[in-house]
């Protein structure tokens, strides 16, 4: 699965990225975590507040840091 983390690079966004990587590690699966800090990309995806996280192209969280458990639950579906 493709996990995208959106954020300009503030502390919250880095925490979100860290949580996403932890979740991937715990899941044991082959998932890719990508960090996107380009504002134009965020705009086209309809993101209003950061950090945001998308799973396979679908935005699942925005405006808050999700815990690694929450992200793991999403990956497991």
């Amino acid at each position, binding site marked *: 699965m493709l996990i995208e983390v959106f*954020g*300009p*690079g*503030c*502390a*919250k*966004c880095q925490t979100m990225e860290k949580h996403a990587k932890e979740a991937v590690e715990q899941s044991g699966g082959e998932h890719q975590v990508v960090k996107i800090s380009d*504002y*134009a990309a*965020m*705009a*086209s*995806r*309809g*993101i*209003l*507040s*950061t950090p945001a996280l998308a799973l396979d192209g679908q*935005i*699942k*969280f*925005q*405006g*808050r*840091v999700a815990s690694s*458990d*929450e992200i*793991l*639950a999403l990956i*497991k579906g």
Partner: protein
Amino acid sequence: MSDVAAQPSLIRRGGWLLLALPLWVFLYLVIHPVSEWLAYHLLGLTPKSHLGEAIAFLFYDTPKVLLLLTLVVFIVTFIQTFVSPNKVRDALSKRRPGLGNALASVFGIVTPFCSCSAVPLFIGFLRAGVPLGVTFSFLVAAPMINEVALGMLFAMFGWKIAAIYAGTGVAVAFTSGLILGRLRMERHLEGWVQDALNAPSLGDIEDENVTLAVRIDLAVQGVKEIVGKVWPYILAGIAVGAFIHGYVPESLMAGLLGKKTWYSVPLAVVIGVPLYSNAAGVMPIVEALLGKGAALGSTLAFMMAVIGLSLPETVILRKVMRPRLIATFVGVVATGILLVGYLFNAIL
């Protein structure tokens, strides 16, 4: 299994809250006697002496501000889980200037907003058809009328000062947005922003469905995050506050930031803008300033300048606005703050 992890128990959280509340009240009641005991008995300082007053202020104010901050942040973050930028955007889209500016200014108080979100939010609003001036009203109100600062003012100085702060903040945001909208400065947005505004949308996002237990978790997370992040600012603020409290004579403060000094309001703004502090960190300074006879208008202007016109946020907004627009933005907001300061110095 993942369902259990994703759905936290409400009862357990409610239980913890019921335990935490009496503990909070108990701590709040004992800090005053404990701080005096520490300063005057344990350390043997003389009451009414400069050092004694300063140290007692330090011992009393640190736990007091932290306790109040914890409670305020919890309540505010909980309320904010019900308001999302998405909802605000939808409520503001295609609104006429005037009503739109008024709504945007009021929404700015309650919407969760961190300055690193300023750019995506700005573009997202414009893309959804929120007029530029209305978007500006929101961008002015969101940081300037900080919900935590509002709660802290209410807790420390009562509803009148809190209402004056919120009311004047809304007035500044409303007017600034109205003026900036009239100036038709769309062409002073950076080129890439204009492109982004016209780019096709790849879909819209729906708000998450959050349960009450998750809202409580988010509020607790907010407390940890904010209190964990701002305590150094608070300590610094209290140290400055303690110094003002113990050492700065009332006559000096009344002279510099008093009502009768014509330059007190601009001076407060000039000191305030480069001082990047957190809303909560300013409170002890505000407390000490007011206690030492600084005029309310000057103090409000100082606080608004510190919180509402911060340098880092200006740097972030520079990414979307060309220099002329950003200068106009800062100029209009600063003028608004100055007017608020003079107004309150004149009528109170």
